[in-house]
Each structure stands twice: as C-alpha cells, then as structure tokens.
C-alpha cells in the first residue's frame, strides 16, 4: 500500500511537471501563431498594395501612349483573319501555340 501511495505521489508530481511544461509549450506555440498571423496580415496588405500598383502601372491610359511610341496601333480589319484560315497555313508559317 505504501508503495502504491509513493507511486501515486510520484505520478502526481510527474503529471504536474508535464502539465507545467505543456502550459509553457502552449504559450510558446500561441506566440508563434500570433507572429505567423501578423506576418500573414502584413503579407496580405503587401499583396493588396502590389496588386494596386500593378493595376496602376498596367492602366490603359499609361500603356496606350507607350505602345504608340513603340509603333503599335489597334489592329486593322485586314490584319485579322478567321482561325480556320490560319490552320490551313503550312506548319512552318504557323505561330507556336502560346506565343
């Protein structure tokens, strides 16, 4: 019986220590989660700003004059043709897909 009591006591102390360390581990993990969450919020904010900047840089009002300076212009009707005609071209004249 005494042995059992001793074992129970040891088990209680061990459990208390385990609980104590678990508590601290949980807090550490929580702090880690908060850091990650803050990083995610910051990343989302940065993405929003980058998206806005990309939208601003690619706005047609800016691209249009640059394209014209480079000698580009809206396509003329005679520069367009239907797909079936294009596929009739010999393979060496066909544009690679995705180009």
């Amino acid at each position, binding site marked *: 019986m005494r042995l059992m009591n001793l074992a129970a006591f040891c088990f209680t102390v061990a459990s208390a220590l385990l609980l104590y360390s678990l508590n601290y581990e949980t807090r550490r993990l929580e702090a880690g989660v908060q850091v990650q969450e803050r990083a995610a919020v910051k990343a989302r*904010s940065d993405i929003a700003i980058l998206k806005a900047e990309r939208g601003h840089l*690619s706005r047609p009002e800016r691209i249009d004059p640059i394209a014209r300076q480079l000698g580009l212009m809206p396509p003329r009707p005679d520069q367009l043709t239907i797909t079936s005609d294009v596929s009739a071209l010999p393979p060496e004249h066909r544009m690679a897909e995705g180009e």
Partner: protein
Amino acid sequence: MRAGVSITPGLPRPARLSTRTRRAPLVNAMLLSGTVLAFGTVASQLLNLGLSGQQQITIAVSEPVATSFSRPDIIDRNGRLLATDVEVPSLFADPAIIIDRDEVVEKLIIVLPDLDQNELHQALSDKLRRFVWIRRGLSPKLAQRIHDLGLPGLSFRSELRRAYPAGDLAGHVLGSVNVDNKGTAGIEKYIDDQIGVDAVHSVTLSTRAPVRLSLDLGVQHSLEDELDTAVRRYHTRGAAGLVLDIKTGEILASASLPRVDPGRPLPSTDPLLLDKVSGGTFELGSVFKTLTIAMAFDEGLAVPGTMLDVRAPLQAGRHTISDFHPAGRPLSVAEIFTHSSNVGAGMLALQAGPEKMKAFLGKLGLLQTLKTEAGAVSTPQTPERWERAELITVSYGHGLAVAPLQFAAGAAALFNGGTRMTPTFLKSQPGVGPAADRLVTPETSRQMARLFRLNVMDADGTGKRADVPGYRVGGKTGTADLASGGGYEAKAVISSFLGAFPMDEPRYLTFVLLFEPKGTAETGGQRTASTNAAPVTGRLISRIASQLGVQPLAIAATQ
C-alpha cells in the same frame, strides 16, 4: 507466577492491535480519495480547457476606436482591378501631451498646407480630449515627413483606404466612398447596399469575393480616349458615350466628360461634372426617328418601301415643321430614315396616333424610371398632353427628354431580335436571367438592322462617316437643339450617333453624344452629327471591335 500469566510471546497486545488495524484502511481511503480528487480536478480542468478553447481577450481603451469598413475589390469583366483597399497611415494627436501647440500647428502646416490652421489650433487647445484626427489617409511619403518632424503628441494609426488603380477611368460608374470607406455613390454605394461590407476596428482586408463588373477596361479606355479627342477636335463643352451588349444587357463602357476622379470625390454640384449618361435627361433629336419608324413597321403601318409625300411642311400649332435638307420629292420610309426627314417621321407618328406612340415608347421603357446598379437613372421628362404638336415633335426627338442610357436600352430591343434588354453594370452569367420578353417582332428587328446599315452604306446616308470597313457598322445621327430655360439655345446643339455592329447579326450598340460642338475646318463649319458624332463612332468601333472579338469580313463583302 509466570504460569499464572498466559500471554503468548511475539503476539501484539490485543488493544494496540485493534486501533492500528482500524485506522489503516481509513488513512488509505483518505489518501486515495485525495489523490483521486486531485487527479479529477486536473482532468476536469484539462477537459474544460480543451473544450472551451481560448477566450478572446478584450482590451478597453480610453481613446475612440476608429471604425472603418473593409470592402470587396471591384474588377472589370476580364478580372482587371478597378478598386481595392490598401493600408495607409492616418495622423492623430493627443492634445494632453502636446508641449508646444503653436509649434505643432506651424510645422504641420508646412507639410500639410491645406489644413485649416484655426480649426487645428482650436482642436489641439482642448486638453480634455485625448484623441483628435488631423488627417486620414496620408501617403507613406507624407507620413514619413511628419514623422521626421519629431513632434510629441502626434501619432499614426493604420487605416483602410480605397484605391482606384485605373485613376479616373469609369469614375462616374464606380462612384466614391467617404473617409470611413463607406460607399456614397455609384457601384460603391451598391456594394454597401446589396453586397455588403464589413465593419472593422483595425486594418483587416475584406475576404469577400471581388465584384465583377460588366465593364471592359480596354473598351472603356478606348471610349474615353475617343471622347477626349472629340472634345478637343470639335471644341465641345462635354461628351458622353456608352457601349452595350444588346444580347445580355451588359454595359461594356460608359463615360461622361469632364471626368470625375473616384479617389478624390468633389462635393460639387457643377452640372458639367454630372454623369450625362444616366444622371441627366436630354432631348436627343433625330436618333429618336429610329423608334418612330420601328413603331410604324411593328404596327404594320408601313414597310421600308412605303412612299410618303414629304414635300409640304407639317403644321403643328404655331410651329411649322420642315426638313433640314428638303428632298423636294416623295420619299420611301427607308429614305425618310437615311435623309432624316422630320416631316416623314411626323407623318408616321400622326398615322399611328398618340395612343400607339405612347404605348410603344412605354413598351420600350422610355416613359418610366430606370434603375441600374449605379443608381437610379434620371426620370424621363414627357409631354403633359399628347396632342398633334407633341406627337410630331416627339417623333423626331424633341419635347421628350430622356437619359442616354435609357434611350440606348430601349433602342437595343429593336436590334437584338426584338426582346427586352435590361442594362446592367454587373457581368452576367450565360443562360441566367428571366425569359426574354418580346417587344417587337423579329421581322421589325431585321428591317431596322437593314435600315441602320443602309444609313451608313448609302452615299447620301447621314451616317456614312461612321463606317468601318469589315465591321458592318449601322447607325443613326441626331442633332438636337439644346433646351435652355423653356426654349432652345440659338446655336447650341447636342449631336449624337446611335451605332450598332456587326449589322448582319447585331451584338453591340454604341451611343456617342457631343455637347455643343463647334463647326471646324474638318466639318466644313457644320455642327451636325454626321460631321462629328458619326466619325467619332467610326473611330471608336475600329478600336473596340477587335477587342470584343468581332470577326471582320473581307472588306469587299461588306460593301
């Protein structure tokens, strides 16, 4: 003596033995129950913690917490960004810890010259206040300059701010938000009312799906650019235009010049800055003949070949209605359209009578208030009585003022096969929506498409300058006297062109309006729509047709 005492050696005494044996189980039970209780408490606490989760920590602060709204992004039909929320610094002051108020005001005015000096001075004088907004939504560069001043009592807080990456493109449609990021006009207000925004106390970007508009950024830019050119070329006081998909009702572009910047909304009541596409009503002139002639076809009163003697002017009360370019011979209904004969349109309206005319316009939705996602369209101004004079004037687009968007939506039904089309600023899903409501017969729609094309192809047609080889453009001009103070201005007109393409299977409708254009050397001194609005439409269609995927036909086949 020894024999007299019968005690067995080695055995405990009976009294001591019985006390110990009685106490031992009690102590053991107490220890055991104490241990069980301790473990039970720990277990229940663990269980409790595990099940209840972490409670939110609430911190009460003495200063007012700024409530802002996080909004979903707005994108065009192809996913290009039109509006988004970004994090920006906002400047506030704590008057209680400001040491030298005058210094703060003096230095801040240098960086923010548009601050009201007296107001700021007064706000900072109240030492009981612990929180005073100075400027919300600063640029990072300005915030750094203020930070570098090193003034105690000034701090920054991050807030959400609406950004419009495309600048003032489609500014009238997008609308605006207030300082709290709440929608106050246009699509922004629609988002608040119908889609929803989230009240936030910190910088939290919206997780809602973006709002996909029907607008096409490329088409919108082409329209605004061509209108800009037209304003300069014809010295107009303003311009407006729109591009509609007449099958789905989607508005692909809508512009009104001068533009407004959604990022810097002005509390201006300047009528020049009004959205002329849906915020104002105008007498549109001869483009209205499209409706009059469609009514005559649909009611079975005429066919394109029906001849009418238009040589004699029409009498309407005190007024005499005559043609701008009298033909001097009877004209067919098709010629009435291509010559834009007021007398011919008036005769067709008289033939139909006021009831049929009113019913037809009502059917096309031109007598009721129209609503879109960007807000209510200005209510049409209709004649009080529909007598002979009103009937004749309405037939060629005077005496009835309507918003250009509403007119275009009504006219679209004449070219899409004859079904009702409700204009929308949101991208529609294919196959979704109510069953098409028939307004005119398919035959009327085909006849109108032929007339539209004829007016551009014919050497005498008023719309010939709108032609774009390969894209089968059709259309009708309108040159209306500008209404002013109960009468009409002597030399001011609104010239417009209602166009559609490709006319073999009409899909897109354009409407271009130029306000008070001047005669130039290019137009031969003329201000009529055939010399200005028609070529603007031609240039516009040549730019947007390929963007919209319209297949050009061999040029010879389209003539």
